[in-house]
């Protein structure tokens, strides 16, 4: 069995009277592609936001790579090695594709004001490195030909891939993708699947929120199902598919 990367223990989050997450516990192992599914409003994105430090949980704890995580700020989560994409794509619209990915390198580089002004050899090496890595990542996700185009002029599918490239630029251990296949057609989804598998094969653990059942079942090693903020199942896809509670959650009634 592969070593664990992330353990979420009884995570709770509420907004006023609404309980978005109730005692959600799950375990993600290194090198897995782990799916998080559930009907709309189940709390999947809320979980992501807790994981990446955007929300503070009201209860429970997170253990990441052996360390108890106090991701009180999103940039700390990025530093620890958790990168994410957003359900509604959050690119830097008026920067080029290349620049977007270059910003992703921020967390692993250091040049400050002094370096910026003096442009000493070390800073220049770092800048060259940032440039290089950004170009590599654009190739990796397949948008290299659009490197100098503004992010907001890219096609929808390219924007999704660009966001992944930017997340990869942070050298994450865990890549959390929030509905990366949303709005994609069948061939784009197939390409995405290849990309995600490639990412996993390159040593990055992937956590995936998705609605495309076919994609999830075919791609993920294990899947957790949330419904109304509660985890109702966590297992391999084949088992989850047949779980009566899961079926009821999606279809709203038991299947005879």
């Amino acid at each position, binding site marked *: 069995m592969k070593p664990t990367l992330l353990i979420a223990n009884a995570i709770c989050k509420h907004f006023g009277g609404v309980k978005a997450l109730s005692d959600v516990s799950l375990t993600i192992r290194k090198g897995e592609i782990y799916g998080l599914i559930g009907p709309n409003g189940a709390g999947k994105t809320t979980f992501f936001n807790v994981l990446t430090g955007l929300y503070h949980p009201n209860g429970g704890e997170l253990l990441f790579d052996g360390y108890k995580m106090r991701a009180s700020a*999103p*940039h700390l989560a990025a530093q620890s090695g958790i990168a994410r994409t957003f359900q509604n794509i959050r690119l830097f619209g008026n*920067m080029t594709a290349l620049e977007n990915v270059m910003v992703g390198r*921020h967390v692993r580089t250091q040049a400050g004001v002094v370096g910026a002004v003096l*442009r000493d050899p070390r800073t220049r090496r770092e800048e060259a490195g940032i440039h290089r890595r950004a170009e590599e990542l654009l190739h990796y996700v397949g948008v290299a030909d659009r490197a100098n185009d503004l992010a907001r002029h890219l096609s929808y599918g390219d*924007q999704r891939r660009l966001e992944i490239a930017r997340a990869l630029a*942070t050298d994450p251990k865990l890549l959390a993708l929030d509905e990366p296949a949303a709005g994609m057609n069948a061939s784009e989804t197939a390409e995405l699947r290849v990309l995600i598998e490639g990412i996993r094969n390159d040593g990055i653990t992937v956590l995936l929120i998705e609605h495309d059942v076919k994609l999830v079942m075919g791609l993920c090693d294990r899947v957790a199902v949330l419904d109304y903020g509660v985890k109702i199942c966590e297992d391999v896809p084949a088992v989850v598919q047949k779980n009566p509670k899961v079926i009821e959650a999606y279809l709203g009634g038991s299947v005879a």
Partner: protein
Amino acid sequence: MMTLTLDTLKQDKRAAIAATVGVGVLLAVFPFIVGSTLGNSWLRILDFALLYIMLALGLNIVVGFAGLLDMGYIAFYAVGAYLYALLASPHFGLHVPVWVILPAGALLAGMAGALLGAPTLRLRGDYLAIVTLGFGEIVRIFMNNLNAPVNITNGPQGISSIDPIHMGGITLAKPLSVAGFTLPSLHAYYYLFLALALLIIFVSIRLEDSRIGRAWVAIREDEIAAKACGINTRNIKLLAFTMGASFGGVAGGLFAGFQGFVSPESFNLMESVMVLCMVVLGGMGNIPGVILGGVMLTVLPEFFRHSAGPVQQAIFGKILLDPEALRMLLFGLALVAVMLYRPAGLWPSTIRRREFNGEAGNAVKGGK
């Protein structure tokens, strides 16, 4: 019509060198041209223009690069100016040398910036504007009233007879002899201010195209995404704010030494608004644009002041309308007009122009 930007100059090396040499020569002889054709009062205005350009460039880091709306920037100018006045004048009888006061002013202003920024930079844009405006006013009110029971700032009368800028026996208040050639005081100040302005321009250009510069743009575009990229938005914003403040502090010290006199009146809200307008109207985030804004908003009002009275006399035989009110009225109209027709400024950076013309910043919609 091709937009002239630093980018186009970078591409054609020979054109760039020719332009640099040409500008350099012009800058070097400019004070002599102005002095002999327009007289000393305009040379003084030129020197002030350079001070304002320094201020505008400092504020450009805050507003133009990092996108933080500071409407009380003049407070940092005031801090630098008053520090100089307190440390180098008969007021306390201290005469600390310039090369100590200016860095101290930068430091003190920077600290003030950090103190103000730490709790407030997370506020929404327009709230930040009002809070910084309030801060500017608080500083002015304190400067105006800290004359009792202990006289620190000498209240509304201000502090006068401030030591001119001098170093190692050479003072800029008197004509200097340089290589057998006599350089009048106003010219000497011009070269000093020009050198410092060029330094600030250099620093700004370097910052713009750097890891920090990119982080500032990222924060402007989408702060949440920026955080997800590992950018410590709080610290990076604070960095911009503090840097801008310290540049203001240096400019303030120079102002005190140059003018020889400081009073709270010089640091009111209108001054903050003016510097903000130099950045916004000139062209946010674009260094040449900001310089243009600085020059325009220093020179044009003076030009107006000199002519409004005589023009009215010539046409109507008397002064119908208070020239000062008229000048400010025209300024207000210009502000509104520029915002309606060229909201990114007259000469903005390309990315700022995009922000103002296209979808504003966040939430990228799937493009064609």
